[in-house]
């Protein structure tokens, strides 16, 4: 029975063509894989395979250039937006985006990020926020939630000692240079479809020269949070979305 169905004309879903066969180094269930797939699908849908330059960060996604078959540059820690601005200004007909985590974007690279967004350079920043330093062993990051335990705050983050979680996406809404700011997640099929539409909109806005775009993907870090991937998704739904509210926070692409 199943052999009758498995024919090329009946295909409804397959790994995106731009995602190559290299096994990803991410932990089982990591949100990075889904975001990589979405980026690969959107670039192919837009027909920009030969005209896209990604800038990969330092962090778990440091090897992003090994997985998506487009042109890439590797930036020093936190400096991806600065590098992307340089590439876009020299090559205005290219689709230029950065792919950064919260440790890269919201901790060490805050200055570059906010200034690039404020200047309104036509780049897109994909910001994967899992509220922890995943790659180095689960230390507290600037976006770690209050009371969330990590390796460096084992009893939970307290505002007296560690300060409050920073919300870069809300800051970006206030900046004149941004045209599209959105916060999405990738834990269910519906959420993944919404995130894909947001990434598409951001990429199109940067190609149309409307300003800079920021798409935050609230994601999980099952190893850093010390949970199973399924439990991590549930924990994210119950805790992260209260502080990091999803939706299109700013949309000037129609103006």
């Amino acid at each position, binding site marked *: 029975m199943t052999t009758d169905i498995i024919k090329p004309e009946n295909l409804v879903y397959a790994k995106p063509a731009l995602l190559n066969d290299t096994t990803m180094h991410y932990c089982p269930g990591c949100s990075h894989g889904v975001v990589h797939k979405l980026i690969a699908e959107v670039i192919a849908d837009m027909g920009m395979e030969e005209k896209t330059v990604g800038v990969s960060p330092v962090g778990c996604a440091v090897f992003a250039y090994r997985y998506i078959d487009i042109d890439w540059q590797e930036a020093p820690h936190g400096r991806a937006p600065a590098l992307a601005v340089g590439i876009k200004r020299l090559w205005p007909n290219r689709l230029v985006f950065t792919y950064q985590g919260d440790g890269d974007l919201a901790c060490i690279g805050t200055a570059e990020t906010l200034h690039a967004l404020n200047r309104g350079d036509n780049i897109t920043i994909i910001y994967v926020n899992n509220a922890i330093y995943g790659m180095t062993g689960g230390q507290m990051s600037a976006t770690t939630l209050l009371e969330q335990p990590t390796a460096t705050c084992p009893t939970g983050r307290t505002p007296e000692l560690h300060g409050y979680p920073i919300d870069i996406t809300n800051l970006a809404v206030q900046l004149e240079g941004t045209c599209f700011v959105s916060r999405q997640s990738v834990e269910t099929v519906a959420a993944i479809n919404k995130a894909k539409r947001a990434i598409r909109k951001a990429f199109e806005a940067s190609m149309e020269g409307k300003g800079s775009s920021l798409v935050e993907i609230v994601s999980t870090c099952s190893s850093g949070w010390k949970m199973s991937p*399924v439990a991590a998704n549930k924990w994210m739904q119950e805790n992260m979305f209260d502080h990091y509210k999803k939706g299109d926070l700013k949309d000037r692409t129609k103006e």
Partner: protein
Amino acid sequence: MNKMKGAVVINTNRCKGCSLCVVACPYSVLELARKKVNASGYAYAQATNAEACVGCAACGTVCPDGCITVYRMKVEEK
């Protein structure tokens, strides 16, 4: 009456056994392998209840590693 029938093909060598597809499937088609692992040591996903598949592609969409290919066709029921 027409009915949708689906089939999934899982790249078991690439699978890391995160079980997100198992949870996402609305028809309980998938399960993690028991007492069997792939070359990387992960208990991979497999379609143990393949007859129930309607080809909705929820499993493929949520798979972080792009291991799942989904096919679907209309079947006439007598």
